[in-house]
């Protein structure tokens, strides 16, 4: 970590040491300010995403955890008033660099959303979408099957691949979206509260899936459910809301190994949050 980054991290959280992962950080997000128009949504947060691990983002609503996640693959660029200050180093390159096309970023950093959002086309076409988009020359059929198997959906849909993706149940749709995202084998998978629209059984399946996914991919996961973070995340980043300046600005309070965050939090705010004093 550079000296300035260290100093900055110290300035935000004087007591807790800035988190540096043991392994390689595939994404190094050094966020200074994120605005929506004039509204300062998130400030000063250094969030490294470690390779081959699941990094969980937790925090109360409005703390900017989704905003930070969506900044990593420039999904927020869809919002015209969005402005990002800082940098997100991905394999050493800033994804906010002047010459970088956000489309390219999103092809390497895949995303699964809060609401299942399959395209209104067949199950097969949904999963093959990314392969066709990238003009994949190999065996599309085989890749589709593999992706559906990894998403633990193959057995349920193998006889109805021509049916619309929207004909599936909510949990199945979400696993279809995961299959669609991993079919192209993206380097990193961002998951923005992927279980919030799912029932407990489907949630269990998706969590199981995440644990299997981390063997091949790096996963960053936003969750409003602390138990979920303890179940699946290796590293946890806790975000808080600062209302002292009149607005509601999110910032990284503490980041560390999941067990440390939940059992031995260094910050008072983290302690209150993980013990359920506020949510």
């Amino acid at each position, binding site marked *: 970590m550079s000296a300035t980054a260290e100093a900055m991290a110290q300035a935000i959280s004087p007591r807790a040491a800035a988190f540096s992962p043991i392994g390689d950080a595939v994404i190094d997000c050094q966020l200074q300010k994120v605005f929506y128009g004039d509204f300062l949504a998130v400030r000063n947060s250094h969030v490294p995403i470690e390779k081959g691990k699941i990094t969980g983002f937790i925090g109360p609503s409005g703390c900017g955890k989704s905003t930070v996640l969506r900044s990593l*693959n420039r*999904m927020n660029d*869809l919002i015209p008033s969005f402005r990002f200050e800082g940098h997100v180093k991905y394999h050493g390159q800033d994804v906010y660099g002047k010459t970088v096309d956000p*489309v*390219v*970023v*999103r*092809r390497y950093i*895949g*995303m699964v*959303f809060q*609401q299942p*959002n*399959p*395209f*209104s*086309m*067949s199950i097969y076409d949904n999963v093959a*979408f*990314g392969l066709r*988009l*990238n003009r994949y020359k190999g065996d599309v059929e085989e890749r589709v099957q593999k992706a559906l198997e990894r998403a633990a959906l193959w057995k349920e849909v193998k006889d109805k691949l021509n*049916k*619309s*993706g*929207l*004909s*599936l149940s909510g949990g199945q749709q979400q696993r279809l*979206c995961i299959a*669609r*995202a991993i079919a192209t084998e993206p380097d990193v998978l961002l998951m923005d509260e992927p279980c919030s629209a799912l029932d407990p059984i489907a949630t269990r399946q998706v969590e199981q899936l995440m644990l299997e996914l981390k063997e091949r991919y790096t996963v960053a996961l936003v969750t409003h459910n602390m138990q979920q973070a303890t179940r699946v995340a290796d590293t946890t980043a806790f975000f808080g809301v600062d209302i002292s300046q009149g607005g509601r600005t999110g910032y990284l309070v503490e980041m560390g190994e999941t067990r440390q965050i939940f059992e031995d939090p260094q910050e008072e705010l983290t302690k209150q949050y993980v013990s359920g004093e506020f949510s």
Partner: protein
Amino acid sequence: MAVNPFQHADSASRVSGPPSGGDYLADSIFRIIALSCAALIVVLILYILWEIGGLALPAMAQHGLSFVSGTTWNVGTQEFGVLPEIWGTLYSSFLALILGGTFGVGIAIFLTQDFIHARLAAVFRTIVELLAAIPSVVYGLWGIYVVIPMLRPVADWLHSELGFIPIFGTELSGPGMAPAALVLAIMILPTVAAITVDAFRRIPYKVKEAAYGMGTTRWEAILKVMLPTASSGILAALVLGFGRALGETMALAMLIGNSNQINLSLFAPANTLASLLASSFPEAGQIEVQALMYAAVVLLLITLIVNIVGLGIQQYTVRKFEGKA
């Protein structure tokens, strides 16, 4: 008034109680009104069919199916055939649908897919919808005085250079298929555009997010995701536009040339069923009126078939793409 089995609960709550007899009466009255409104429409359609069918009956009995396959309309010899009109109706509507449909969908994409600011898009949309407010006869006049003269040099060039292609096979003598189809395309444009805009607007934001999240460029998102998602709505727009084109009367009567012939050429005059009806009725005798009524029945049937087939295709796409039964 319904029995209230929970009367003993009155002692517990002083506010809750069963609906009054008046409430139930209002319910039934409202249901009857709604039902009769719906029934009235069905009755009206059946009545119109009955009346026109009745008037057309003598002609139907006399000419039978040869009316549909015949190619001459001669009051003197009492020969009545509407094949050229059927051809003209379908051909002009088809051409208008291709032109108006392409532009209508294009305008809808332009207005809904973040090409311009939302407020400017609303202004544009109003302007496009204003096209629907222009009376048919004004379109006809505009066609005669503006479109035909404008078309003439283009048509002459196409005919002389590419005359070997059947669709450019004749010279443009004035009114004809090309100006009629062109004006017809403009007339169905607002219908197609407005309904397609609504179809695109109905697409949830999360679909757009999903598309960009997969790393699509803007055009890939529009062509590969937004268009298939809106396809059932776009089909509905095209069916309605085609239906409008089939029945359009005044502008076509002024522009198509009212000539009973079947010709692939865009520049040849032709005729449509609606314009045949409009231009022949004022001077028709009893026998011809019966034949015209028969022609009206044919037009009604064509419109009906087009709408049913269109609805069928639309239902199919809804099932196929959206997975709804």
